[in-house]
C-alpha cells in the first residue's frame, strides 16, 4: 500500500443500476494502490468553479493485462457534486485523489466473513469480497436498503460472495426489515468470526452492537462530512475509545479511518437518536 496520488483520469464509462451511477476511470496508480475500504476524493465540475472534493468508496479495481488499470466508484445523485458526476461522459476528464484512508484489515487466517452493506455502503464490499476470497475466506453478503430501488446492484451482488441475503425496510425486495434482523442467523449458520460493515452511521452502530452481542469482531467504514480527505481540516472526526477506559478522543476518519473497530467507536456520543439494533 503506497500513498495517495492525484490523477487526472479519463472517464471510460458510466453505468446505471437503480438509483446508483457507476463511473469507471483510467487511473493505474490509484488502482494499483487501492484496497477495499479506502476511498477516492474526486473533484466535480470545471476548473473555473470552486468545489470541494467528494469522497466515494472504491467499488472495484479493473485490470488490464493483469495489472490494475481502472477504478470504479458508485454514487447516488444528491447535490451539485453528484449531479456533475452523473453528467460526465466517456472521454471526459476527472480529477481523482486516492486511495485515501485505511482499508479493511483482512483476518490473519482464512475464516468466514459476514459483509454488511446499507445502500451504497455495499459498494466497497465488492472489492473486499474479492480480497477476502483471494485469501481463502468464505464471504456471506448481507445488503439492505429502504426500498428495492435503493438496493445497491442487487443482481450483481449474487456473485459477490458465497451467499447473498437482502433486506428492505418496506419489503419491496428480499426480506422485510433491516440488516441487523438478518445478522444473528447468518452469524450462527456460517460460524462467522468477522463482520465488515459499511453504510449509514445509525446502521453501523446497530451492526456493531449486534456483532458485539454475538461476540464477533466487527470493522465498520464510517461516513462523516469531509472537506479535505487528507487529514488537514479536522472536519471528519468520530469519537473513539482509545486508551483510558471511558475516555474518547476525536479521530479523523479520513486518515485514521474510515475503517474502525466497531467496538472502538463511541456511538452514543454521535447523537444518532434512538438506535434500534
Amino acid at each position: 500500500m503506497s500513498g495517495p496520488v492525484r490523477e487526472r483520469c479519463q472517464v471510460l464509462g458510466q453505468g446505471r443500476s437503480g438509483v446508483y451511477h457507476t463511473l469507471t476511470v483510467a487511473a493505474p496508480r490509484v488502482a494499483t494502490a487501492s484496497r477495499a475500504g479506502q476511498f477516492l476524493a474526486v473533484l466535480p465540475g470545471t476548473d473555473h468553479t470552486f468545489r470541494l472534493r467528494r469522497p466515494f468508496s472504491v467499488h472495484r479495481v479493473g485490470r488490464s493485462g493483469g495489472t490494475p488499470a481502472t477504478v470504479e466508484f458508485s454514487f447516488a445523485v444528491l447535490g451539485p457534486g453528484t449531479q456533475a458526476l452523473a453528467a460526465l461522459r466517456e472521454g471526459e476528464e476527472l480529477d481523482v485523489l486516492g486511495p485515501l484512508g485505511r482499508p479493511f484489515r483482512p483476518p490473519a487466517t482464512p475464516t468466514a466473513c459476514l459483509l454488511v452493506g446499507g445502500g451504497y455502503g455495499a459498494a466497497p464490499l465488492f472489492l473486499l469480497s474479492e480480497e477476502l476470497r483471494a485469501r481463502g475466506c468464505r464471504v456471506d453478503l448481507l445488503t439492505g436498503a429502504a426500498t428495492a430501488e435503493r438496493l445497491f446492484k442487487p443482481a450483481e451482488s449474487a456473485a459477490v460472495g458465497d451467499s447473498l441475503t437482502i433486506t428492505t425496510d418496506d419489503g419491496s425486495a428480499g426480506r422485510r426489515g433491516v440488516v441487523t434482523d438478518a445478522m444473528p442467523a447468518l452469524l450462527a449458520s456460517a460460524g462467522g468470526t468477522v463482520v465488515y460493515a459499511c453504510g449509514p452511521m445509525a446502521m453501523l452502530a446497530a451492526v456493531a452492537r449486534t456483532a458485539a452481542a454475538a461476540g464477533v469482531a466487527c470493522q465498520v467504514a464510517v461516513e462523516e462530512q469531509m472537506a479535505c480527505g487528507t487529514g488537514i481540516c479536522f472536519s471528519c472526526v468520530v469519537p473513539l475509545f482509545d486508551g483510558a477506559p471511558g475516555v474518547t478522543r476525536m479521530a479523523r476518519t479520513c486518515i485514521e479511518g474510515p475503517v474502525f473497530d466497531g467496538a472502538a467507536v463511541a456511538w452514543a456520543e454521535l447523537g444518532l437518536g434512538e438506535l434500534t439494533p
Partner: protein
Amino acid sequence: MKLDRRGGEPAPLHAPPGAGSRGASPLAVDLCGVRLPTPVLAASGCFGFGREMAGFVDLAGIGAVVTKSVSLEPRRGRPTPRVTETPSGMLNAIGLQNPGVEAFCAVDLPFLAEAGARVVASVVGRSADEFGRVAARLAAEPAVRLLEVNLSCPNVEHRGEVFATDPEAAAAVIRTVKSAAGVPVLAKLTADVTDLVAVARAVVDAGADGLTLINTLLGMAVDTKRRRPRLAAVTGGLSGPAIRPVAVRCVWQVATAMPGVPIVATGGVVTAEDAAEFLLVGATAVAVGTASFVDPRAVVEVADGLAGYLRAQGVATVGDLPALFKPGR
C-alpha cells in the same frame, strides 16, 4: 527591518524551480525579519500540523507552515457536521481541536523541524493569560520562527466576545504575548468589525510585528429539507474564493492606512493571480487555506505560478509589486 533572533542560522533556502541564486530569488521575502523562500504560506487550520502534507509537498520548499492553532490544554472541538460547502466557499466550525501545546511541542513540532519547514506557530487562548502561557512555551522552541496570534476566538472573560472585535482586548493579548515571547508576532484579525484599521492600529501599537488578514467571516447555512442548520455549531467561519473580495479590500485598507506594517494576506487564494491581487495591494505574503483541501499541492503551485506571473509582467521580485499598483485611473 527587524533582525531574526536566529539570524545567525539562516533557514536553508529552497529556491523555487527556475529561480535564480539566493540574492536574486524573485520570490524570497522578509517577513518580520524572517527570510522566506516564497511569499506563499500554508494557512492555519488548513494544513494540519504539516505531517499529512509531507507526502504531497516538500515542506522545506514552501514559504512557511502556519500550524493549526494551539491552546494550553488539548481541545476536542465541536460536534459534527463541522463543515459544509457554500457557493465558492465553505463554512467550518471545527472548534479549534488540537492536542494542546505540550503534545504539539513533543510530537508535531519536531516533525516539522526535521522536515526543514519554517514554522509559524498559531496561538489561541481563552484569556490574555492563556495566550501568554502558550506563547511563552512555543517561543522556547527554537523551531518556532514566528508566532501568529489567532484573535478570532471568544474571550471567556468578556462575555465570549471575540478578541479581535475589540481593540482593547486584542491589544491586551498582544502585549501579553510580546512580553512572554521573544519571537516576532503576527496578529491575526477578523474582518467582522466596523473599523478594521482601528483594531490593526491597536495591535501594532501593542507590539505586533505584523498582521494576518483575514480570518473567516461568520456565516451560517440551512438544510431546508431537514429545516436545521448545516453545522452542528449552527454558525461557522466562511472561507474560500467567496470571501476573497472582502479580504483584498481589508488588506488594501490596512496597507494604505499603515504603510510598512507587514501583512500576511489570507482569504480565497486558489491561483497565483489571486495571490498577486493581495501582493499588489500591499501584502508581504499570502497564506493559502481552503484551496489546500482541493489541491494538496496548492501552496507550491501558487508559488510556482507567481514566479510565472512575475516573468510575464516583467517584474523582478514580488517585493516590487505594491509600487506597481495603480489605484487611480
